[in-house]
């Protein structure tokens, strides 16, 4: 026992690893009728390119932690691959999921949300973005996707609610399943990060956005940084603290800064944006 304690005391880094391993349950459940094989390689931010090539870059923007892969085989012809992308937080996982989601997918009640296509089933489950796929296309393969996904959802056992500020978007006029989370470089600016967005009025161009910044002071400084190089004639501030900015890259943006919350609308130059901005402000006030 003494030897073991001495060993553990002298191996602090491994202790961190052991602790991490202990807090993480076995990721892949055994499923009756399927032979489970877990890949030995676990992909990290340093080698994710090895498995998904250039697509890895976007995952890294969303604080990707690691990727575990397993295969479930039922028959010689039917193998289903499961990829568990773990992100730092549920918001990050949602962000990556939202970057790959189309509003017209066939959505299913799985995890926070999932969708199924021929040979593919993807779903969001807490900090996990789960991708399940097979090259087979017959009915047993599709059924296999769903049964494995259901077992995995139960096994991971994560909270199913939407993360972050998604609930704060007004429902009136909102296009279903268009909410996104942009972790970094929102609107192409390095100082805007952590933006939630949603599309409105049957137009992918009309978007509402919300950014929660660290503090009111940090938010003011960020806005100053944004406005400083813009032509003065393109900036107006109206009653109620509304800014209307003609952004040279992103068109007209109307926004309000309320303490540490920046919310706004882009993609419309008429009164549509003003109306949506008002509704967004009201919705945010209710949600806080």
């Amino acid at each position: 026992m003494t030897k073991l304690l001495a060993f553990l005391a002298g191996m602090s880094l491994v202790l961190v690893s052991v602790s991490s391993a202990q807090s993480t349950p076995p990721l892949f459940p055994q499923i009756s009728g399927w032979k489970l094989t877990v890949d030995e390689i676990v992909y990290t931010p340093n080698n994710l390119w090895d498995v998904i090539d250039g697509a890895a870059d976007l995952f890294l923007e969303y604080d990707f932690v690691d990727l575990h892969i397993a295969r479930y085989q039922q028959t010689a012809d039917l193998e289903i691959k499961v990829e568990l992308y773990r992100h730092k937080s549920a918001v990050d996982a949602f962000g990556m999921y939202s970057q790959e989601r189309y509003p017209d997918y066939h959505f299913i009640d799985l995890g926070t949300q999932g969708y199924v296509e021929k040979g593919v089933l993807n779903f969001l489950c807490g900090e996990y973005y789960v991708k399940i796929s097979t090259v087979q296309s017959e009915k047993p393969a599709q059924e296999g996707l769903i049964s494995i996904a259901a077992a995995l959802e139960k096994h991971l056992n994560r909270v199913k609610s939407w993360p972050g500020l998604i609930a704060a978007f007004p429902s009136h006029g909102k296009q279903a399943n268009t909410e996104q989370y942009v972790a970094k470089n929102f609107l192409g600016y390095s100082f805007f990060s952590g933006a939630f967005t949603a599309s409105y009025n049957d137009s992918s161009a009309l978007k509402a956005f919300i950014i929660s910044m660290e503090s009111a002071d940090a938010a003011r400084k960020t806005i100053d940084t944004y406005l400083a190089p813009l032509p003065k004639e393109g900036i107006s501030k109206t009653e109620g603290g509304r800014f209307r900015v003609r952004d040279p890259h992103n068109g007209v943006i109307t926004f309000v800064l309320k303490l540490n919350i920046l919310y706004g609308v882009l993609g419309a130059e008429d009164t549509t944006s003003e109306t949506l901005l008002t509704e967004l402000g009201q919705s945010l006030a209710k949600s806080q």
Partner: protein
Amino acid sequence: MNGYDRRHFLKSSLLGTSGALLATSAFGQTPTPGTQNPVSQKKFITRKLGKTGIELPIVGFGVMRADNPALVKAALEAGIVLFDTAHGYQRGHNEEMIGEVLKDHKRDSFVLATKVQPEDRDDKAGTLKSGSTVKAFLDRFDTSLKRLKLDYVDILYVHGISTREAALFPAMLEAVQEAKKSGKAKHVGMSTHMNEPEVIQAAIDSGIYEVVLASVNFKQDHYVRVKEAIAKAAKAGIGIVAMKTMAGGFYDKERTKPINCKAALKFVLQDENVTTAIPGNTNFDHLALNVSVNTDLTMTDDEKASLALGKSESGLYCQGCEHCVPNCPRGLPIPDIMRAYMYTYGYKQPEMAQSLLRSLEVQENPCSDCGHCTAVCTKGFNVAEKIADVSRLVNIPAEFLS
């Protein structure tokens, strides 16, 4: 980038209207659109892409990380010509976004490359399987064309090739030839970010691929071999497009020390056999920085120093070069033990490391009776220290690890 720089770039973007860039043809002997910097009027450095007849500015745009059409528009206005995407990026959103922007531009004002991944792969072996058919590949490619709103792409790559066997997989060779014959792809190639020298050699041997999109960066342990392969490809008339020039963006595994991206980009482009590079631009600052390299490849002393510093930073993990193995008097399987080290500290899977060490029959601290370690690591690892550290796992009761 400071406020002045952003102001300058905003101004340049506004001035650099796309119309001004469309006066000439993108190909052949005539000047390429975008070869003239819209603001400074400094001429862009251009190079020929193998035997394709395409001449490109040395910096293009890898769009994989950009979800903002305004960035692509700004890049066009700043004179970028080559845009690189893939069928799989964002499940198609990336190609759609680019297509929406490019539909407003003349077809000969840009060069568009996309990549299609074979459907059925053995990721571990890097080989292709029977499900990677001609039809599946071409169906995916047709989907890409629809998303891009284009009748053809300038370059179609087979995506993510890492072995000679995959590079010469008959169905893929047939598929890209069919795509070219149909006019839907003007030129064909493949992309690789592993075993690049082997894949580049296979491209030469194929007699079919015209372009290779390859990882090239200053941190590659095998950079010399990559460079030699690129030289052979260039001699054979194959165009080389460099990616991953930023080497992951950080010097350290913990991602706390950012790489000097401009220096890293310039480093790769010093090799004139590299036609162009496609750094990712995630914001207007990155874009301005990368565009500036199009007019000036000279490396400053600071840039040289930053890369030298970066090269001296050894990563945590063994690259498996095996140079150390012959020098170990005990004949230890050092790369395998280093893999166990990676499992422990990188993957946080000590039980996996223990399993590997036990299968190798490694004893606790097997180097203890060696006075001086002669197994010198090319990356500068202290081999003996790491072996002593990780080998202690072999005697830990398994229940403490899982």
